[in-house]
C-alpha cells in the first residue's frame, strides 16, 4: 500500500483563551522540514468555539513560527462573524510554499470585543507537505 506524506498535527490547545481580544496562540505545530524546492505545505485547521460575552467575531491568523509576533502566512486576518453563546465550527485551509528551512506553524485567534473567554472544543490543526 501507499506512501507517506511528511505531516504534523495537534489537537492540544497551546493556550487558555483569555477574557479579552488579545491575539492568542491556540495551536502550535512542531518544526517541519520542507524540501529545498518550492514544495507546498498544506495547512488545515478546524476550530469549535462558543463565543464568550461581548465577542462579535473571531480573527484567525496562521503564522510561520510559535508566537503572535511571527510572520503571517495568510495575506490578511481571517474574520468570522459570530454570535455570543452560539457554538460554531469554523474550518480553514491554506498553504505555504517553503524552501527547506525548519518551520513550525501556529494558529492564533483574537476574540474581537470579548470580555469573557470563549470556549474551545473539538479543534485541531494539521500540516503536510505535497
Amino acid at each position, binding site marked *: 500500500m501507499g506512501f*507517506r506524506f511528511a505531516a504534523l498535527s495537534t489537537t492540544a490547545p497551546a493556550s487558555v483563551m483569555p477574557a479579552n481580544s488579545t491575539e492568542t496562540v491556540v495551536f502550535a505545530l512542531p518544526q517541519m522540514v520542507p524540501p529545498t524546492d518550492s514544495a*507546498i505545505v498544506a495547512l*488545515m485547521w478546524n476550530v469549535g468555539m462558543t463565543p464568550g460575552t461581548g465577542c462579535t467575531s473571531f480573527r484567525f491568523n496562521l503564522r510561520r513560527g510559535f508566537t503572535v509576533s511571527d510572520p503571517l502566512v495568510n*495575506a*490578511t486576518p*481571517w474574520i468570522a462573524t459570530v454570535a455570543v453563546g452560539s457554538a460554531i465550527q*469554523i*474550518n480553514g*485551509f491554506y498553504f505555504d510554499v517553503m524552501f527547506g528551512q525548519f518551520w513550525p506553524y501556529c494558529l492564533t485567534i483574537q476574540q474581537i470585543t470579548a470580555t469573557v473567554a470563549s470556549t474551545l472544543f473539538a479543534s485541531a490543526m494539521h500540516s503536510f507537505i*505535497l
Partner: protein
Amino acid sequence: MGSRVGSQSTGTLLGVLPASSAYTAIYTTPAIITPSDSAMVFLFWSMVFTPGTACLGYQMKFYRGPDLNGVLLPVTWNAVQVAGNSYVCCGGYVDSPGGGAVPYTLAISQTAATGAGTITDGGLIAFIL
C-alpha cells in the same frame, strides 16, 4: 521521511466580484499534469468572504479548465449567509480527469446580490493521489 505528489496552488484572486449574482472565476490553478489512469486529483479551496448588499449567500462551482468555459464538475456548494458579515469558507472535492495538463477554476455566484461582495484572502490547491 515521506514522499511528494504532483501539486499546484494559487492564492491569487483573479479580480473583484461583480455587483450581481453572475458566476465569476476567483481562483485558477496552473495546469497540473495528471496520470492517464483514473488517478484522483484532490481539490481544496478556501476564502474569507463578506457578502455585499442583498446577498443571501453564495453558490460555488468547480471547472476543469482555465475559466468558466471548462468542464463543470458535478458539484455545487450552497451557503446561506447575511450581508455584511464575514465568513471563513472552505471546501474540498475530487476529480479524475484521466490524463492531460489540467488547470482548475473555482467560481462563485453571490446569491441575489445587488452589491459586490469582497474576498479578502483564500486560495486553491490541487494535488494528485
